[in-house]
């Protein structure tokens, strides 16, 4: 596990030393706040579920940054040929996969927290602190955050499976784009469902994502191995 953390730390530093990654992070944190400003009339007059949908967006949109990181995880290393020295080191396959997953998960999770906090602050200002405090209880906020984590793990694991098997970062990013598209569709669907059955749907989605996580991680473990990666270099 020590080597997984070492690998993850290097990946995070590498990812975020790119200016583009910083802009992407700021964009995905700012987007939900911009949305509540743009819809403050609807949010102010409408039911609480609209504010819940905005909160869900605030939790899940920053996870989009994870898709790009996951897409680059193996494909970018293959392209730069840096995977060979890494695979030549005495580090277990599971440490490599875990390290890359941590590198995808930690920054996106941190962004989800920042985004939720920013949303909470901004919506308190616009819609009143009392209403937001009643709506976004610590349990709800934790639930939204947990949902974001499961979502990142699912998307990260699936995109990493793809990234390990394609030859270029560009291809991996294109596939990640489809995943992002699917994510937007899923967000919209979740949003519309929450309007009718808020709590049950959130719990149902969490369970579904959790199951999907387990499947994806198991597949990532089965599909990705050193031999496969080297043979494709």
């Amino acid at each position, binding site marked *: 596990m020590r*080597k997984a953390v*070492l*690998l993850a730390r*290097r990946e995070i*530093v*590498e990812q975020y*030393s*790119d200016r583009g990654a910083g802009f992407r992070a700021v964009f995905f944190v700012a987007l939900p706040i911009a949305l509540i400003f743009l819809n403050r009339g609807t949010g102010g007059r409408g039911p609480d579920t609209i504010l819940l949908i905005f909160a869900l967006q605030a939790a899940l949109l920053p996870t989009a940054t994870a898709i790009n990181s996951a897409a680059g995880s193996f494909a970018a290393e293959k392209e*730069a*040929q*840096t*995977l*060979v*020295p*890494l*695979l*030549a*080191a*005495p*580090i*277990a396959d599971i440490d490599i996969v875990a390290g890359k997953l941590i590198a995808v998960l930690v920054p996106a999770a941190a962004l989800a927290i920042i985004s939720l906090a920013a949303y909470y602050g901004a919506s308190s200002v616009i819609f009143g602190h009392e209403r937001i405090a009643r709506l976004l209880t610590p349990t709800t906020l934790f639930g939204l955050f947990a949902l974001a984590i499961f979502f990142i793990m699912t998307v990260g694991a699936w995109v990493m499976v793809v990234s390990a098997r394609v030859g270029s970062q560009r291809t991996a990013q294109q596939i990640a784009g489809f995943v992002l598209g699917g994510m937007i569709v899923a967000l919209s669907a979740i949003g519309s469902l929450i309007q009718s059955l808020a709590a049950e749907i959130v719990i149902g989605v969490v369970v579904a994502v959790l199951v999907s996580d387990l499947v994806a991680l198991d597949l990532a473990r089965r599909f990705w191995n*050193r*031999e496969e990666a*080297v*043979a494709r270099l």
Partner: protein
Amino acid sequence: MTRRFGSFNALSHTSFVVRSGEIVALLGPNGAGKTTASRIIAGILAPTAGDAVVDGLSVREDAPRVRARCGLVTDSPALYERMSLRSYLTYFARLYDVMSPGPRIAGLVELMGLTDVLDRKLAAFSRGMKQKAAIARALVHEPPVLLLDEPATALDPEMSQTLRELIVSLRAQDRAILLCTHDLDEAQRISDRVVIVDRGRIVREGPTDELRSAGRPSFRAELVADEAAVRAALRTAGVTIGDLSAANGRLELRWTTDDPAENNTRALRALLDAGVRVISVNAETRSLEDAYLAIIKESRQ
């Protein structure tokens, strides 16, 4: 070792030894199986059949410990270019479980002449400096086995020479060094033994000097004479002409023989008797390249 990729045989029953304090050049055309062999030995690619034993450890049974005993350098430096040289080497030292990497890194960068750029980002390095950084990475855990896969690709002649000197100095430290290359000049200069592979099979193996001198000795003479007279004289002497060409009023004659003492004496006597003026006679030294090309041609026939 045998390694197949689908129906393609990258290596077939390939077997050779690299001892401590020895540089073995693994030569062969593109796609011969050199890189596959080095990756199997490095413990990053499993053989389909057979095994590779590194410092007493089987790659089949103990790949992680094999990896810890090998240093691998590829044709591309393959660095994380946003890192500084210091962080990069520290990172790999920790991956290789080096406890206190500081002094080791200081020693390595001094050896490579990179002390002044230790805290500079790798992206700012020249190609030669990057390759040196890659070699430092491969040595950071003091491996007894060093696998160099085309290490001098894209280096200028001066940097290639520096690299050769460095490789030779590493041999002096009693490391076993496998140099995969198709730079025959480089192999000729520094390798103790040569293994030639083609289409996944070893076609010749032996000490570099022995390989160069293998085959029928060949000779070259510079003559002033009429071409017909030379041909007639040599026919009388029973010597088969390899090549006879005219340039600047002189003839250049090449021939090979299994028995130089007997046949060369007879040939020269016949030429002199025919009134041919002999300017020079030389034994031709085969370069490793000549030997290599002859061996590859022979193996394909």
